[in-house]
Each structure stands twice: as structure tokens, then as C-alpha cells.
């Protein structure tokens, strides 16, 4: 009985990361408070980056920055900000989520015209296997094999998971292009279907999927490279398999105009976004497993990151607008795959 109670205590302690609404601020006169609305994946990297920015800003202006941080799944965060959560800066998993905030009228400038097209980090979609790769997974094709159990999150509940599905769908398109010379959407859909057939669990977010994999479920997880690298850095033994054809993940960040104007924090918010793109911050991101958007830092870290032969980006699938229409609309390809039609 005591053992069980103890177990419960432990498990309660390491439950899912809670959605931390901003902690109370300790702003005094002369201090400036910056409200950050971010997606949960950057949390670890931010624990190092935020103090760095504090020092930097103090040196520059003598002002002390106080952060209020909120980390949520990207889609949830976007909806929160669009619904009135007063974040000064938004750091999200994908373009579509920033667009939600723009559409709600909170971002009024064209964030894509910022340096690096408004992106702060990159990564790729990869396959994670158990240590030593016991099932001999080498590429997407192996995921269609009988008896291979696959994990990926549900793109319906997790916007970030759309990258994973895009990668599979795009790899199918690439394959058909290699074989027949033209992109064949029907083939790509079949490809996605045959992998989906082996899916063991369709979790509600990338983090939940990773957690399930950690509990010993499944043979392969389809996820971001940075997620796996972060786990490996923490001492968990996984193998990373980089498929030949995969998608480049791009994570944007932007100042939320309406909120910074209201709070009078535009200057520090803009400085924060450009700080995230500075070499120093980019090196920190690289340390946490992201690929850099900065040319110089990317060059330095090229030993750490192989560029797969058939790497494509979202424009290969026709851009986000097209992808949302064909894949994730109400009766789109994803729905058809789930319903088996």
C-alpha cells in the first residue's frame, strides 16, 4: 500500500508539463515586463536564452527585463493569443499558427518580411528507433513493413504534428516523382495510408507521443530531430534515422503588434526577436538540437547535422495554404486516410 502511494506521488510529480500561465511579475520602476507566448518545444532552450537576453539588455540599456512565460502546444497558444492572451512576442511551431494571430488582427505587420523570413529555428522530420535499431529501420519504406509499430501524433489535435504527416506525404510524392517523373498525389496518399496502417498510437501532441515512446510503446517514432536530440542529450538511448526524403521544419516568431503597443514594450520585444536570431542565441538553439537559420552558425554546426539528399520544404507541397486545403481540410486527405476511404 505504501509502495503504491509512493508510486503515485512519483508519477504525479512527473506528469505532463503543465501549462504555465505567466507567473506574477516582480516588475519595479524602470523594469520592463515582456510576456512570451511560446510553443512548448522551445521551453528548455529558453531556460538558457532568457537569462542571456536579460544580461544583454541590461548591458545595452541598463533596464531589467522581467519575463512572463507561457508554454503551450503551438495551436493552443495561437488560439490563446488570438483570443486575447496579451503576449508581446509569439514563438510558434508553424506559419499557420502565426497566421491565426494575424487573422485575428493582433499582428499587423508582415512578419515574413523580417530577417530570415521571420524564422528563428529549423529542424527536420526524422525517425527515432530503440537503441541499436533492432528492427533495422532505414527509411520510410520500412515503416510499412508488417510488425513494425509506428508512433506519430494526431495532426488534428497538434498543429506541430502536421510537419510529421507532411513529411510522409511529401516523401510519397518524391518517391512517385523518382519513379515516374511526376508527382502523384494518389500514390502519396497510398504511401501515407500504408504507414498509418502500422500506427500503434495517435497521441494528442508531439510531447505525448514522445512520452508514449519512452514508456516502451512502438518501434519507431516519427518526430522532430530536435526533440530526439534533446532526449538523447538527457541520456536516453535512441537511434536517429534520417530518411532520404524528408521535410525541413521552419519555426517562426513575431512581435504581436497590438499587445506591444498597449504595453509600450515594442522596443524590447523587437530586440528580443532579433536577439533570437543572433549568433549567440543561435548557438544555444543548436546546443538544444535545432538547426540554425544563421548561415555562419549553420556552417559551424554542419558536422552535427547531416542534410538528407531529398530534403524538401513546405513549398514542395505547394505552401501552407495549399497543404491546409488538400491535407487537413474537413474531407481532406488526412480525413480520408483515417476513415479509410
Amino acid at each position, binding site marked *: 500500500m505504501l509502495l503504491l502511494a509512493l508510486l503515485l506521488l512519483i508519477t504525479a510529480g512527473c506528469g505532463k508539463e503543465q501549462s504555465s500561465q505567466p507567473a506574477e511579475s516582480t516588475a519595479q520602476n524602470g523594469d520592463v515586463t515582456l510576456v512570451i507566448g511560446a510553443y512548448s518545444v522551445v521551453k528548455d532552450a529558453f531556460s538558457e536564452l532568457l537569462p542571456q537576453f536579460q544580461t544583454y539588455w541590461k548591458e545595452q540599456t541598463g533596464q531589467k527585463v522581467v519575463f512572463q512565460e507561457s508554454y503551450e502546444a503551438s495551436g493552443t497558444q495561437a488560439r490563446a493569443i488570438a483570443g486575447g492572451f496579451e503576449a508581446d512576442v509569439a514563438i510558434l511551431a508553424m506559419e499557420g499558427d502565426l497566421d491565426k494571430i494575424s487573422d485575428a488582427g493582433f499582428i499587423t505587420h508582415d512578419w515574413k518580411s523580417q530577417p530570415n523570413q521571420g524564422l528563428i529555428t529549423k529542424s527536420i522530420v526524422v525517425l527515432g528507433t530503440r537503441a541499436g535499431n533492432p528492427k533495422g529501420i532505414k527509411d520510410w519504406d520500412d515503416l510499412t513493413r508488417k510488425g513494425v509499430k509506428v508512433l506519430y501524433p494526431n495532426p488534428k489535435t497538434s498543429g506541430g504534428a502536421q510537419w510529421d504527416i507532411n513529411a510522409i506525404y511529401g516523401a510519397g510524392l518524391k518517391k512517385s516523382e523518382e519513379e515516374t517523373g511526376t508527382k502523384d498525389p494518389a500514390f502519396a496518399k497510398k504511401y501515407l495510408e500504408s504507414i498509418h496502417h502500422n500506427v500503434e498510437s495517435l497521441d494528442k501532441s508531439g510531447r505525448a507521443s514522445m512520452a508514449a515512446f519512452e514508456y*516502451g510503446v512502438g518501434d519507431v517514432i516519427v518526430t522532430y530531430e530536435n526533440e530526439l536530440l534533446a532526449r538523447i542529450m538527457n541520456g536516453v538511448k535512441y537511434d536517429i534515422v534520417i530518411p532520404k526524403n524528408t521535410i525541413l521544419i521552419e519555426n517562426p516568431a513575431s512581435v504581436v503588434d497590438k499587445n506591444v503597443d498597449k504595453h509600450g514594450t515594442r522596443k524590447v520585444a523587437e530586440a528580443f526577436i532579433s536577439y533570437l536570431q543572433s549568433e549567440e542565441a543561435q548557438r544555444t538553439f543548436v546546443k538544444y538540437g535545432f538547426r540554425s537559420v544563421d548561415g555562419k552558425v549553420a556552417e559551424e554546426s554542419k558536422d552535427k547535422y547531416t542534410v538528407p539528399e531529398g530534403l524538401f520544404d513546405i513549398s514542395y507541397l505547394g505552401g501552407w495554404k495549399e497543404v491546409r486545403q488538400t491535407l487537413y481540410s474537413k474531407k481532406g486527405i488526412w480525413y480520408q486516410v*483515417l476513415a479509410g476511404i
Partner: protein
Amino acid sequence: MNVMFRSKWWSFGFRSAIMLYFIVLIVLPIIGIYSQSVSRGFVPFWESISDPLAWKAVLLTIKLALIATVINVLIGTMSGWVLIRYRFPGRRILNSLVDLPFALPTAVTGLMILLLLGPGSLVGELAEKLGFTIVFHQPAIVIAMVFVTFPFVIRAVQPLLEEIDKSEEEAAYTMGATKFRTFFTVIYPSMLPGVISGAMLAFSRALAEFGAVVLVAGNIPGKTLIAAVYIFGEIESDNAQGAAAVSVMLLTLSFIILWTVNLIQARRPGK
């Protein structure tokens, strides 16, 4: 005269306060869900509930909730019986443990099931050897539902058992009835209302279970996706109307069940 007048007003005020409370807390949100579900007209409403993924999720939920209810009726009745009729060391502690599933956040329940029955655990490996998996498949969902709804039947049966007139039972014995016959003709009929109402509460609660199930189910549409998780998915993909439409299915079902139970119990003679 004066006293009566005052007490009349008192009772009127009291009743209105309760009615208001009831309307604000229960009736309004439910009306809200119903009106949300048809907010874009009846055609989208029909499309939402005739979606194969949606009704498959609802059917699966009903099926698994039924299984969980049957298990709870059997185990719950027995536990209630044992806790009332027998005296043994640790009975009081056991009796207070019964309510714990209510106090535990359901996500913790899910996590516990994952750890205790998942791959790598003793039970998980044993099941794997026997050729089936518990976690991320339907058995895990049933276990989660059973755990969460465990107290209902026990708590509904216990007071009735305590009320049973010992002399009726003794009379049955004196008249030569066997233990078996006494149980089914004297004791069981008095327990039955408790068993039924407990079962119905358990069933309704199991239909709606989310926190534990989302962790232990694979959530694959058509296979392991239950209604509550389906609804969550619709909310997350900005389809509030679709989510409300499926909720309405569940709500209506629960309402019909609870109402039927009330009717049955009202018709029972002497109750």
C-alpha cells in the same frame, strides 16, 4: 397567521434560489451545447453526426462503457456486500479507499495504468506473451473506465444493504429456504434499485471519461478513439460545432438513460 405568511415566503424564496442555481449551473450550459450544435443549421449538424469517424467513436464508447459497467456491477455489488456483511481487519480502511478514484485526477489514473500495465511492466509482458496488448488497445480503455467509475455501484448498494431487515432474512431461513434462495428472493430484490442506479451513474460517467483514456488509448479512429477524445480533437481543430454535435449525441443518450432509470424506480411499489 403571520407565521404562516412568513414561512410561505420563505419557502418560495428558497425554491426560487434553488431553481436559479440549477438553471445557471446546469440548464444553461446544456442549452448552450444544444444550440451550438445546430448553430450552422441542421445540415452541418447532420453531417457532423453522420461522419463515420464520429459515430464509430460513439459506438465504441458505448460498447466499452457497457463492458465497464457490467464489470462494475459484478465487482461493485460483491465489494459492497463484503464491506457491509463481513467484519475483518482493515475493513474500515478499505471502505474509505473506495472513494479514492473520485479524488485522483484522471490523468494520474492514466499514467498509473501506463506504468503498471504498459510494455516493460510485469503484467504487460505477460499479456504480450499471451498474444494481446493491454495499453493503447481497448482493454486499457475498459480498465480506465472501470477504475474511474468504481465507487458508484458500491456506494449505491451499501445503504440498501444496511437497511435490510435482518428478520426477513431470518424468517426465510426458518421457513427452510437455502442460502442461495434467500439471497435471490429476499436480499437481492432490495439491493436491485441500488445496483441499477449505481450502474447507470457509472455508465454515464464512463461515457464521458477523458483524462485517463486519452493517455492509455491509441486514439486511432475506428479502433481506439472514444467519443470524448474525438470531441477534444474537433475542438482543437477549431470545429466547435462538430464537437457540440457529438456531445449532443452523448448528452441525449445519458439523459434518456437517467430518465428511464428514474421512471423504473418511481414505478417500484413501496418506493
